[in-house]
């Protein structure tokens, strides 16, 4: 596909080339000890048996409420955390089995964009130093000043003027800082970016600017995104496919429009109907499913389906057996006994 053939509007078109394959990853964290002499360590199963793929030029939206494990998934895919089970492949190479220099080389091609543009940029460094840092660390440039030309090009690509390079982060607004963060992530020309709530801290009008920038970059460079967010409106807009996480387990994964038009899992339905729509007559007339109760404690998840404590369709089998995550229709995966 040539650059000129790509549509200017809409989501960029992905290819079938797999960039990331996560296969049954689980992550657990030790919390406190119990038992005689405190020998028994308790574990929080933050992520349990999660599988997905991300293709070249594709955005996979990963949605979940706080505590669902979405950030943990993002960090594990980048191998900033080690999974306790499962395997992650990056372009056919096993990330989970790689170490040392090999891993360093892999990491160049996988980057992270953070949520908080106020906390993620070192206030003592100039923008030039910040954006050049990955280049210097990975030996692509001798020093920040020798990389100036490249940095300025990156900044311009992210919609920042040339004189940005010599200023410090405090001189910029939230939206501009997020652009700096994106320029920094792009410096090593990654194939894959985990964007962890990249627009949640921004105001609505600025949020749209950053979403558009991310889409333009994808169209141009074919970057694959794992877009982590809790805002379903933004996720629908940017994602090709969407995965929904509940209490550490995937409950549904399908094409973005399929998830929104014909959701299978009752949690997905409830989640979608909770999102307020900025249209008063429509919002008031909507049939909404307001879930009772809260996400279960990950230290002590309920047996069977983790959603059973809040599910309006709960059956006996849901209380005892974990529903398998299976393909219910072509490309439409869900974990539910009832649907």
């Amino acid at each position, binding site marked *: 596909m040539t650059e000129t053939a790509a549509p200017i509007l809409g989501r960029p078109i992905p290819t079938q080339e797999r960039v990331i394959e996560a296969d049954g990853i689980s992550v657990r964290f030790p919390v406190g000890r119990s038992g005689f002499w405190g020998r028994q360590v308790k574990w929080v199963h933050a992520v349990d048996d999660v599988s997905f793929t991300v293709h070249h030029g594709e955005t996979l939206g990963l949605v979940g409420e706080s505590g669902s494990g979405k950030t943990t998934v993002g960090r594990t895919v980048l191998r900033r955390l080690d999974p306790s089970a499962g395997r992650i492949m990056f372009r056919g190479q096993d990330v989970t089995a790689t170490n040392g220099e090999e891993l360093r080389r892999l990491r160049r091609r996988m980057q992270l964009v953070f949520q908080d543009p106020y906390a993620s940029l070192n206030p003592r460094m100039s923008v030039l130093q910040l954006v050049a840092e990955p280049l210097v660390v990975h030996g692509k440039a001798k020093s920040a000043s020798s990389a100036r030309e490249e940095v300025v090009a990156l900044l311009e690509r992210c919609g920042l003027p040339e004189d940005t390079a010599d200023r410090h982060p405090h001189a910029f607004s939230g939206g501009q800082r997020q652009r700096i963060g994106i320029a920094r992530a792009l410096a090593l020309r990654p194939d894959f970016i985990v964007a962890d709530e990249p627009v949640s801290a921004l*105001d609505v009008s600025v949020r749209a600017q950053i979403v558009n920038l991310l889409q333009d970059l994808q169209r141009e460079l074919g970057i694959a995104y794992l877009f982590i967010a809790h805002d379903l409106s*933004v996720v629908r807009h940017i994602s090709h496919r969407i995965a929904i996480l509940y209490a550490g387990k995937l409950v549904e994964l399908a094409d973005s429009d399929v998830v929104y038009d014909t959701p299978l899992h009752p949690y997905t339905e409830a989640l979608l109907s*909770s999102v307020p729509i900025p249209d008063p007559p429509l919002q008031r007339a909507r049939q909404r499913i307001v879930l009772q109760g809260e996400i279960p404690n990950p230290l002590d998840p309920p047996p069977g389906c983790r959603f059973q404590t809040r599910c309006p369709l709960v059956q006996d089998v849901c209380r005892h057996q974990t529903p398998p995550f299976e393909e219910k229709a072509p490309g439409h995966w869900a974990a539910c006994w009832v649907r």
Partner: protein
Amino acid sequence: MTPVLEVDHLQVDFVTRRGTVHAVRDVSFTIGKGETLGLVGESGSGKSVTAQALLGMIELPGRIVGGDVRWKGASLVHDNAAATIERIRGREIAMVFQDPMTSLDPVFSIGSQMVEVLRRHRKQSRKAAWARAVDLLDMVGIANPAQRVKQYPFEMSGGMRQRVLIAMALACEPELLVADEPTTALDVTIQAQILDLLADLQQRLDVAVLLITHDLGVVAGVCDRVAVMYAGKIVEDAAAADLYATPAHPYSIGLLRSTPRVDVVLDRLVAIEGAPPDLRRPPAGCAYAARCDHAADRCRKEQPVLEALNGRDDRLVACFRAAELAAAAYPTADVVEDAVAAEVEA
């Protein structure tokens, strides 16, 4: 409807070493009995400062430098305002804040904090107040209120704490509830619960609500009327149905267009380019002119005032070109007919 609350040309400044920030610049609005008003704006637009000004809660270096706030005719800014505020705060006007994690005292149980509020405002025995606390928790939909009332804030989730705070705010049956971003810190499914609760209580208790938020979606289901703030001023004040269907101020239009929706797929979001002005040096003309596609010379030189659009008292807009833009964007039936007729003729 006679308004219970009148905010009249309110101005608030923050004097800092780096200059004076004019955070609220000439804001006026009213709230009638039992009415729900949404005050919508981005960060730094002055919406929270406006809410704080209502009950004299602006902290130094902030100061009300002009205008007035009146509650049922009594000033909350001039003439012995401190005593007036003391009399009505909690009793007639109550507040709920954004962060349910820090608004409760961690070292006291929920019950003892509620009893303190109740006994402060009403002469009640400890026992009666405790019973009332249990009733209030029940009213805001907390299961097992008799057990929950004995718990401490750390034993509760964010949504639960926000319910407790709403229960405390409603303890003295106020006539106005000011809710400053009450659901911003919560997850969507919990947000839906709290918004439902607010709408339900508003109907049942006939309490007026001032809901402050940055999220146009949150306002849509709860409020009768919406005021949009930008750079310390209200730019549009209209019935919710009108504002969303036919926004008149270019900023309201931009805000609605740049908000992605779950029910609609757009090809591309229409972002508002640029950023809000620095309120230490507010521009001479309309504060939105620098980002506005329709800005004319006059917009950059003069400040538009909030006035009725096409003579409709319930549609206030602060824009020189509002009438012109509205006519172009939402033509009336006869204009459309004329245009169609002209086209047919051609």
